[in-house]
């Protein structure tokens, strides 16, 4: 994002406090414009789509009178810009409209499906970080060694694998043949409705309820899709870690530290790694955002009732309110994560000042 870009030099004369205020104001305006554009583009796509939202509601057998009646009820006879205006007004009131297909508020749907995706992406990122970071550091330290080569191949293979195919094969082998993990969905049917929904994340809810059976079952379901997403995240994080570390390791202060005779482990983890932490967090934030949206295909394969499959289903059945709502939420998270990593940079990285 270009949010943190500085234009002009005049503001350097302002006092620090005002400078921060100005920066916040600018950021807010730019977020607002981006979100507005995002919604407008989605709205227009929805309107030119050859899928007929009226048909989605009335079904195949509808007579023309029924069709016309619903057409007007949905406000489709008004000009597009007017429709968009009404939609915006509603969104500002926190109302994403009703899903055309299942007759409930889209906001309620999103509240239901979002925790599933969030849980999956979080676990995926966790796996990616826990393996990717040490792998990247080791690859950088032992540059050119076999471990570096393996890390590279593992990452490249990750970048090259069609995720839906990997998911399919994983499901076939680990669930279908070996029976090591749970199947598609978030829980075995027998365990459904056993714990109260508080956060919507079953792993957390079952822990809160102290129900280990449900936790184990949920874990056996989430571990495969999370590992597959985690693999992609790991590929990205390990490559970035390696390149950040290489930059640090060739820096003068590291050479000095080594000359001073500091233990190698201390040099690597305390000095070099300590310096890349901020960069790494931004990379992890980005990777997390990517997983949120990259879950579309994975969720399809694993019948995971999350945001990705929600948007896809809605899109294919012309449920435009649902598509808009879902896209706005994902877009917002995207933008916020970007601002977050920008801010982090501004605050912690001395060079960015």
């Amino acid at each position, binding site marked *: 994002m270009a949010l943190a870009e500085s234009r002009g030099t005049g503001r350097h004369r302002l006092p620090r406090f005002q400078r921060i205020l100005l920066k916040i104001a600018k950021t807010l305006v730019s977020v607002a414009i981006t979100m507005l554009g995002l919604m407008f583009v989605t709205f227009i796509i929805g309107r030119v789509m050859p899928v007929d939202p009226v048909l989605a509601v009335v079904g195949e057998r509808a007579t023309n009178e029924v069709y016309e*009646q619903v057409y007007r009820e949905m406000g489709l006879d008004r000009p597009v810009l007017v429709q968009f205006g009404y939609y915006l007004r509603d969104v500002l009131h926190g109302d994403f409209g009703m899903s055309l297909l299942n007759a409930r508020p889209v906001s309620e749907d999103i509240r239901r499906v979002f925790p599933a995706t969030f849980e999956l992406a979080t676990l995926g990122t966790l796996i990616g970080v826990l393996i990717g970071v040490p792998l990247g550091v080791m690859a950088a330290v032992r540059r050119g060694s076999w471990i570096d080569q393996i890390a590279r191949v593992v990452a490249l293979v990750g970048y090259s694998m069609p995720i839906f195919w990997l998911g399919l094969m994983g499901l076939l082998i680990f669930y279908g043949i070996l029976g090591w993990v749970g199947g598609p969905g978030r829980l075995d049917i027998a365990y459904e409705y056993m714990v109260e929904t508080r956060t919507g994340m079953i792993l957390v809810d079952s822990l809160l309820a102290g129900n280990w059976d449900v936790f184990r079952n949920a874990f056996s379901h989430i571990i495969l899709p999370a590992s597959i997403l985690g693999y992609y995240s790991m590929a990205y994080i390990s490559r970035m870690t390696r390149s950040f570390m290489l930059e640090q390791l060739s820096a003068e202060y590291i050479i000095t530290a080594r000359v001073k005779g500091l233990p190698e482990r201390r040099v690597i983890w305390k000095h070099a790694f300590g310096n890349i932490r901020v960069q790494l967090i931004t990379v992890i934030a980005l990777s997390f955002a990517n997983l949120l949206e990259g879950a579309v295909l994975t969720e399809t394969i694993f019948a995971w009732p999350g945001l990705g499959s929600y948007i896809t289903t809605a899109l294919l059945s012309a449920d435009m309110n649902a598509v808009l709502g879902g896209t706005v939420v994902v877009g917002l998270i995207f933008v916020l994560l970007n601002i977050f990593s920008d801010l982090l940079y501004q605050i912690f990285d001395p060079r960015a000042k």
Partner: protein
Amino acid sequence: MSFLKNITTAAAMALMVGLVPAPGTAETPTDVLVIANRIDDITTLDPAESFEFAGSDVSRNIYSKLVNFDPMNLDAGYQPELAASWDVSEDGKTITFTMKEGLKFASGNPIRAEDAAWSLQRAVKLNKTPSFILTQFGFTPENVEQMIRADGNKVIITTDKQYATSFVLNCLTATIGGILDKEVVMQHEVDGDMGNAWLKTNSAGSGPYKLVTWKPNETVVLETNPNWWGPEPAMKRVIVRHVAESATQRLLLERGDIDVARNLNPQDVAGLEGAPGIAIDSELRGRIMYIAVNQKHPILSKPEVRQAIKYLIDYQGMQDSFLKGQYVIHQNFLPATYLGAVDENPFSLDIEKAKELLAQAGVGPFEIEAGVREAQERLEIAQSLQNTFAQAGITLKLTVGTGKQILGRYRARDLDMYIGAWGPDYPDPHTNAGTFAYNPDNRDEAKLTGLLAWRNAWDTDGLTPKVEAAVIEKDRDLRAQMYRDIQAEFRAKSPFGIMFQRIEQTGRRDNVQNLSLGGAITAVSYWPVTK
């Protein structure tokens, strides 16, 4: 497991399979029925609005009707349910139902004639998609309060013309005939919607079950209705879980995670054959698979061309390969088991005959656009057609889309050819005759988009009046003969190539008994099930 053996033959897989055996099967609780099914077509559970397969399945178990089918004896036809009996007036236009006494809704409210009349009036007034099932008898939102009324414990229905009584009663067994608890529904009325918004996701009926929850694309959960008058169902809870993939349903069934799998494809059915603890049922359903060609097309509207395409379909090849066990050749618009149904299937793949007919029509090679829905079996049918059509010089350009994309163009008469399916709306021959062979106004402006004949711009070559005559014929045998005649003419000149009738193959754990899917005439019944 058979597929395990199968797969290990492959060297590549064998490495990964290792020696770890699959764990033993789990089991579902004894009073809970767990079903895997595709339920993504449910958009509403209001009986006045619900229209798709999975929705009808839910509705049949939570709403009672005036007359209904006995799941254990579907052949007997409609039976009294909420109505104890009925009388038909001499002019044949008025049917008077006498309600049973002492029955209650799930809420505990008594079931009155008032509730029944109001439910039917409501469906007409709301005027949602399935309302035509009722409005074809001349009801309109304006006159319905006079045409359908309650009087004491009687419901009196007056139609605009004299129809076959069986036709009227068959229509009342459709989902739209579900009787609602007026008091409960009206408590949830918003802006004069007669409770429509609330009923989309809630139930207010008197069937053996009541709705606990419906999570779109996830689950439907039903629970027994304590106020139901019948014997308490053995299954206290029914959970229908949305599982899109056949392979997944099969794995779940093998594992014992579910009791019933409803969308197994032929390969997975074959794979399950002989598996321990699993049984496969086949039940003939009402759905018809057909192709149709647009009569606005200069070439496709020639009578010889219309006949030629019927010889360019590899009926036998498809039935015996990718449709094996799930579709049976059927070349007439009335599904087998319907009044007037015939089993004459004169067409088979005959490229030479088709070429002859095309030559008679004087047409050379040409290209047409065929619309097909994104669903594997239909894509395979489409590709097989593409293959056989090409042998007679007809190039099929396939346009694949989601149901709604293709349907929109079909309804706008915008496709040269459509490859699709049609399921009857109510168990009377008129349901299909009235759409395949009936088109009172073939002009574009008429917009009779609900009629298949209109969508293909076919003026029915004189079949429309015959269909009109058949629907009011009171003599059952004569009426059946009229439909047989209509279908013979239909085969000889219509632009429709009817291909197959659906057989639904269900995988179940073998301890599950008495699961009736509803045959060709109605939907699934959970209440007789035991395990």
